[in-house]
């Protein structure tokens, strides 16, 4: 479904991503792992069109989306819950969700997706009329994921959903990610520093370090590979 080939991204003279390739199959959860500064977020932002690629190609389905404007990429079906959640603090929870469905006009279906979001994250329904800025970190993450889902995307990208969230909520959120994948057949690209958690729910995993792919394989196999975990995923 998503095919990234030899992607290169530079910030001025610094190469942040040095030719990584990855493929995500429809209906699966793929995870992109690596330590801080490995280039995970940069990769995601480039797929979304927030940063320009310096080289390589990105295909979504059979379309070349490399360096297309961000709003066009969303229109083609790639939504993202970005790093740091980026909730619109000045908008209510409901307005945030409504913005997620900005490009859609099918009112009845939007309402259905809204109901689905409220069914998996009932807390959001309770806080529907509150400004997004008043939510806790965990609730904001739920909102960020739901907001991305409101676009009814073909590919959902989640950037570090466990970051800065109470441990008890992290478990809930990861359960919900699995639920979204199963219930909706949603294809998901999950970026995580918390490799242990991500490998539990993902089907396939990629590990990158300093902008380069070091290993890829089935999540279950990578999880078993102690050398990889020690070397690249910061586990001891």
């Amino acid at each position, binding site marked *: 479904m998503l095919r990234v080939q030899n992607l290169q991204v530079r910030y001025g003279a610094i190469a942040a991503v040095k030719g990584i390739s990855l493929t995500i199959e429809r209906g699966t959860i793929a995870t992109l792992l690596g330590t801080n500064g490995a280039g995970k977020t940069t990769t995601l932002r480039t797929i979304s069109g927030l940063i320009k690629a310096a080289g390589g190609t990105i295909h979504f389905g059979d379309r070349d989306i490399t360096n297309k404007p961000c709003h066009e990429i969303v229109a083609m079906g790639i939504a993202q819950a970005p790093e740091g959640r*980026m909730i*619109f603090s000045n908008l209510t929870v409901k307005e945030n969700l409504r*913005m997620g469905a900005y490009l859609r006009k099918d009112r009845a279906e939007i309402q259905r997706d809204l109901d689905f979001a409220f069914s998996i994250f009932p807390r959001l329904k309770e806080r529907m009329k509150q400004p997004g800025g008043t939510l806790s970190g965990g609730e904001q993450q739920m909102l960020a994921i739901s907001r991305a889902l409101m676009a009814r995307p073909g590919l959902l990208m989640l950037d570090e959903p466990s970051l800065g969230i109470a441990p008890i909520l992290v478990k809930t959120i990861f359960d919900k990610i699995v639920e979204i994948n199963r219930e909706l057949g949603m294809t998901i690209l999950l970026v995580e520093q918390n490799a242990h958690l991500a490998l539990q729910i993902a089907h396939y995993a990629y590990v990158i370090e300093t902008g380069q792919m070091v290993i890829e394989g089935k999540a279950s196999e990578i999880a078993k590979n102690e050398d990889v975990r020690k070397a690249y995923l910061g586990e001891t």
Partner: protein
Amino acid sequence: MSELLQQIINGISLGSIYALIAIGYTMVYGVLRFINFAHGDVFMIGGFVGYYAAPHIMPLVGGSVILAGPIVLLLAMTVCSILGVTIEKLAYKPLRFRPKLTILITAIGISLFLEFGGQLLFGPDPKSFPTLIPSTTLIDSQNLILTTTPVIVIGTAIILIVLLRFIVQNTKMGTAMRAVSFNQQAASLMGININTVISFTFVLGSSLAAAGGILYGTLYPSINPLMGIFPGLKAFISAVLGGIGNIPGAALGGLIIGMTETFVTGYLSPTYRDAIAFGILILILLFKPSGILGRYEAEKV
């Protein structure tokens, strides 16, 4: 007592015009984080569209007062919307990722271009603004004289501001505007085309300024190509006073500045009329730079 009432009516009339212009400053600041110093001149162009259009519109509608006023108003709003969007596309958009100072200086350049282009095109001498709505006296008691003019000015301003508030708070585009003003990248990730939202902001801001120009001409029936300078600055001060980026704040700031000016002119001396507005600006910048309704916002790094 009656003189006070008279001053209050004058103050609200002037203040509602400042409010209309100030909203444009504050909205553009909200999405682009810069002060569009050409905004006061868009207000002036609004006045001139009214000046040139009214004599043609009047016979078309058979001299009907009810129709002529709104048609001239809508025409001025449309012309200025196009002008505002054009200025943004030609002058500001190419500089969007340059330092803010560049775009600020460009805005001043556009302002001068409109002012002196206006002198060239319309002639530098003041022109008397056509009477769109004949002034009839509503109340004529001992000292208080209330004519239809301030009632229409204030009423039109209120209608437009309420309409704007509805657009910003309740429509999809308005919500997108607020989203963009909070975080452009996150807004892009929703599929929002930032350029469309920016154009929309200029349409709203410029059309309110145009309406301000028509109302100003109705209230003080003499217009000239430099008439936008002072009302523009006063409206800018109003926007800062209310909290830049905050729409209700801009409306409130406009009313306060309009009232203060009227009272200073009436009870103190017309000499201090302009000084007081700038005095308020200095005080606000010294003691509460976020303005009355604005919130403190840390500079993003």
